[in-house]
């Protein structure tokens, strides 16, 4: 029985369910080559973990300890209730998040929303128009989807590109965030345009701010449903852009 590398890796990491774990354990017992590949995964894991384990023995700089405790001082000063720094409330929404993964952007935008929700003007109607079958990207959104590489973003662009991947139908899809309207969405290439099968607007309510990973599960599920293989890495993203986001024929 031949096992792919990811399966053997997951076995070495203790990530397989009991049935598959037992099957591979049995296969290893009679296949020294298989055993060696698993052992390589374990050895590499051990080497990497060992290399960085020394950091755990270092004394922690006092400035970090102070920073870790610093918040409690502020909280005390504010009557123990307000845990964010009041002086920062006038700033842009939280830190300048950069979207490598689009979900992170959705999260970070939402994080800042309760601070500065009213500071933004809503809606930029020029970025999506009704096409024949679906919403189609227009204006700055279309340009960003055409030209912007997630790997080269600074985080300050009006549109942030997240994951780029190939869908089951062979077309490219890209997740994005419109910063001005806090809209997360998915765009898929159809011919010469980007169709938008779904968007999800962060709907902030100060008392109910969700944690990062739960921000836009609908879009995440859509990505998982459509994705063929894996998300493109930086080189693949660049190549797809150079090819004009056209389907690759074998």
């Amino acid at each position, binding site marked *: 029985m031949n096992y792919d590398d990811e399966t053997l890796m997951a076995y070495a990491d203790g990530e397989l369910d009991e049935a598959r774990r037992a099957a591979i354990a049995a296969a290893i017992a009679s296949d020294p080559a298989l055993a060696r590949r698993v052992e390589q995964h374990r050895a590499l894991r051990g080497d990497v973990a060992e290399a960085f384990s020394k950091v*755990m023995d270092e004394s922690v700089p006092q400035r970090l300890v102070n920073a*870790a405790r610093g918040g409690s001082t502020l909280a*005390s000063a504010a009557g123990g209730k307000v845990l964010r720094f009041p002086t920062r409330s006038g700033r842009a929404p939280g*830190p300048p998040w950069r979207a490598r993964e689009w*979900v992170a952007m959705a999260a970070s935008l939402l994080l800042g929303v309760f601070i500065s929700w009213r500071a933004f003007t809503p809606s930029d109607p020029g970025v999506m128009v009704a096409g024949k079958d679906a919403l189609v990207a227009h204006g700055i959104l279309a340009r960003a989807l055409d030209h912007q590489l997630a790997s080269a973003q600074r985080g300050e662009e009006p549109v942030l590109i997240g994951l780029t991947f190939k869908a089951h139908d062979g077309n490219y899809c890209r997740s994005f965030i419109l910063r001005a309207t806090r809209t997360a969405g998915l765009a898929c290439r159809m011919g010469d345009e980007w169709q938008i099968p779904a968007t999800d607007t962060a709907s902030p309510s100060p008392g109910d701010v969700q944690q990062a990973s739960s921000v836009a599960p609908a879009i995440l599920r859509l990505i998982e449903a459509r994705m063929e293989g*894996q998300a493109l890495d930086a080189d693949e993203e660049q190549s797809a852009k150079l090819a004009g986001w056209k389907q690759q024929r074998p």
Partner: protein
Amino acid sequence: MTNASEEIGERIVELLPRLRRFARSLSRNQHDADDLVQAVVERAWTHLAQLKPGANLASWMFGIMKNAWIDNRRSFKRRGEVALPEDSGEHPAVSPVDAHATLWSVSEAMDKLPEDQRLAIALVLVEGFSYKEAAEVLEIPIGTLTSRLARGRTALAAALGKGDGEVA
């Protein structure tokens, strides 16, 4: 309430060694890595209201570090590519020379990885997160996580001279 935030402060203090280790696996220079940790701790306090009751503080803070690193990695690498502590006098010599050499070669190999693979490797191999936990911290599907992890491992093994080629 004050006691609660003091307690969180102490829990963050307890997390500092792990946060420093994660930072060191991202940024090779010790001072840059500590700057990253400090920025993360400050962000955590600023956004503490976002931490849901019952949520895992460690996962949340590792997620903040991931974001802080991706946002600002240039500024956290301004001191260049020095892998070893510059002032080992400040930190008792707990590591013999060969262990430092291992750290140096592993971290040099990790430094050559694409960012997404390095993050996956750091969370799973260095920090010991499960695939599910690491995927949640990175906010990516678990299949994407395992793919990045596998590719990162292959690249690391090759860089460290432990690839399939050598054994086969």
